[in-house]
């Protein structure tokens, strides 16, 4: 119980300390709002433009969710295919790793040309950027069961399908969720990049527009909305994780101090 309050209060305290310092410094040095608005001004802008922010936020959030879903599913399936086919593993793995060396910023404009200004280029960027952590964590996760555990299943006459569903897949879940959480934060970045490159709606679009008009308080309000959405997504994933990986919840968190 005490732990829980610390978990909530500690980051809040730190955040208010940082924001407080920011607020004071802006007033102290009389920084112009179009250079750097004070937190209070951002909050006011956030409140005044809440409806618009929510609307653009919904657009961006659906891009993030769809991108994460497609990228996650793609990464998941790819990892399984690669796991069960040594030939495809050898053929695909270097390409998958190589593909990660290409910055998404370079691909985004091409996608706009191919897919237009709508939802899909953003979803694609988000998917491309978020699939890699899942490929890595799923293929590691499927290797999680010990040789002895696999032997036990085989000795009982289990089929490969049974070994997958009853042993490898559940055993991979803790690792997979670690990957999913990384992917979720990347999907936020991906969707925003997609919007920057070419769009007429979404928080990325709003940031770019407001930036050009020196409406810095709105830029920051949009960033704030994006952060809130990212946190919501992350929190939802943690709730699902606790449900799925329920056996980890009983483990005591031991750390060397």
């Amino acid at each position: 119980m005490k732990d829980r309050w610390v978990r909530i209060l500690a980051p809040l305290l730190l955040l208010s300390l940082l924001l407080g310092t920011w607020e004071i410094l802006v007033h102290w040095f009389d920084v112009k709002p179009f250079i750097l608005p004070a937190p209070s001004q951002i909050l006011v802008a956030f409140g005044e433009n809440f409806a618009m922010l929510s609307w653009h936020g919904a657009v961006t959030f659906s891009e993030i969710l769809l991108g994460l879903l497609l990228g996650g599913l793609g990464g998941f399936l790819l990892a399984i295919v690669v796991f069960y086919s040594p030939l495809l593993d050898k053929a695909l793995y270097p390409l998958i790793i190589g593909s990660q060396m290409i910055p998404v910023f370079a691909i985004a404009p091409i996608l706009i040309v191919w897919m237009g200004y709508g939802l899909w280029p953003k979803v694609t960027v988000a998917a491309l950027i978020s699939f890699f952590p899942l490929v890595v964590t799923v293929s590691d996760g499927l290797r999680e069961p010990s040789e002895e555990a696999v032997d036990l299943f085989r000795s009982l006459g289990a089929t490969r399908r049974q070994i997958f569903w009853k042993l490898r897949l559940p055993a991979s879940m803790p690792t997979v969720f670690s990957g999913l959480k990384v992917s979720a934060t990347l999907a936020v970045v991906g969707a925003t990049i997609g919007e920057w490159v070419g769009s007429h709606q979404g928080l990325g679009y709003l940031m770019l527009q407001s930036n050009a008009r020196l409406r810095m308080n709105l830029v920051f309000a949009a960033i704030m909305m994006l952060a809130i959405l990212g946190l919501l997504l992350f929190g939802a994933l943690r709730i699902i994780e606790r449900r799925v990986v329920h056996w980890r919840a009983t483990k005591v968190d031991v750390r060397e101090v």
Partner: protein
Amino acid sequence: MNGTTALRIESVTKSFDQRSTHIPVLDPISFDLQAGTWTTLLGPSGCGKTTLLKIIAGLERPDSGRVIVDGSATSQLGSTAYLPQHDTLLPWRTALGNAILASEIDGKSINEAKTEAIALFDHFGLSGFESVYPSQLSGGMRQRLALIRTFLTQRSILLLDEPLGALDPLTRATLQKWLLGVWEELKKTVLLVTHDAEEALLLSDRILVLTERPARLQLDQAVDLKRPRDRGSRALVDQKSQLLNLLLKEGSLA
């Protein structure tokens, strides 16, 4: 004991190739197991006992020779109940869910398996722990659960790889007693691997002593002590020191 052969090992050999070196693990080994008997494989650690057990379970192929389970030499996968050295319990399943794993793989009735499992939980002193997860069980309880899972496989041959090896002496002694009780009730054929001579004498009808690698059968001895056996009895202590001498001689010369 009606004398039917449950398991026949016919001149099985096995070797491993590691880089450029060729390591023979099993020299030709042959023996039969009578149905319903308890046989213990005793040998120095690293002599190939586990490899032999895996070959019997069908997990590894012998280089030559064959294994015949219940009269058939086709793949043994699925015909024995193998308990690996570590308990290999699935952490995401409750104790009961772990116990009925084999029935699930066989596609048998889950409810029937659960009823049977609950009876065995009682027998192994685990009743009340059916819905607990393995991480909440002590080492001894985990091992008991793994044994329940093995007994519930409905296979007639049990292959146990040092199931009590990692336990403290007290837990170990209690579990030996339990194990014996369940075995006498269920009439299974057991092949136990251990390096503990006392455990072998306490539990088995017959002891097979293996040599250092490459393993050969060094001694095939019936244990004619009356059950229940007492670890302090003269006869058992004598036989234990004989076995230990045999193992020591083998070990120190290598």
